[in-house]
């Protein structure tokens, strides 16, 4: 037996060598086309989704937080007892309605106009109450200073 088989695969092969060739042959280089791994966008999408969810949650939280249980449009409004005698034209809503209807044409619909007038009345009521309390504070502090 010579070693030619080991050099150029000529001559009589050694069965042991052949067996080793068969075993190791499965691991030989097999040419295949280059495959470039695809870019994984999952993390970016996950971040974007998280941000959207966070924005949504933040928005809902702020909205819920900025509103009382009672919607502003349904706020009850009764004339308080301690409000001091006031100018009747400022209290009676009817003249105000007529007065403002003439002047403010920018409010498009009647419903919006009505809502605006209601809001205005509430605002005036709140300001009257606020200034009344501040007036009381003023009187008391003056009295103490005096």
């Amino acid at each position, binding site marked *: 037996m010579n070693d030619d088989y080991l050099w150029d695969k000529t001559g009589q092969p050694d069965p042991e060598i052949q067996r080793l060739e068969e075993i190791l042959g499965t691991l030989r280089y097999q040419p295949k086309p280059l495959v470039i791994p695809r870019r994984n966008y999952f993390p970016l999408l996950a971040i974007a989704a998280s941000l959207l969810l966070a924005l949504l949650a933040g928005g809902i939280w702020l909205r819920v937080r900025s509103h009382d249980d009672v919607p502003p449009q349904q706020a009850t409004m*009764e004339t308080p007892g301690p409000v001091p005698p*006031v100018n009747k034209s*400022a209290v009676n809503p009817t003249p105000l309605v007529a007065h403002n209807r003439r002047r403010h044409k920018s409010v498009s619909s009647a419903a919006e106009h009505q809502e605006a007038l209601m809001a205005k009345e509430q605002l005036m009521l*709140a300001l009257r109450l606020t200034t009344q309390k501040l007036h009381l504070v003023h009187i008391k502090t*003056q009295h103490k200073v005096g």
Partner: protein
Amino acid sequence: MKPLFHINIRTPLLALLLVFAPAVMAQVQDSRIQMAGLDHLTAKASQTVEVNLDERLMRIAAKVLSDKDEDERQVKKLVEGIKGVYVKSFQFETDGQYVAADVETIRTQLRGRGWTRLVNVTSKKEGMLEVYLLFNADQVGGLAVLHTDDRELTVVNIVGPVDLDKLAKLEGQLGIPELGIESPKKSKKDDEK
């Protein structure tokens, strides 16, 4: 081997910070007082005044305030920039209809977040009157008035830059007597805080 796509943990953290920072800032500067804890007093009260004007309603209310009428022009100037006006006022026919814990739900909120108690008046006849201002830096960011009497509980909350000079100009108008209000300089915080 260098990965094709590498996420630094700082990136999402920075993004979350950017998302939540405005919300956190809004929380810090918000002068809105939650009054829902007083709602149960409505059933006991003989008279209730409740005003809830958010920013949208303030805007539309300002639209119907006339520029020609002197009183309304003054009010219009006063409410410019104000984001909300909230009032809850209860009148009771008998004493003891509300408890200290009810008032505490309001007072607790006024003890923090930049609120300063300007005035605290106590008298047997009128009960306790407290005036609070919220300062954002040197600017007034909100006003709160708390009046507690044996038969009355009133909370007024104005959210936004309240101009006390303009409020003072309402004196003698809207049926309000002269107040003699002066703009306060920012004072030291209460000892209570």
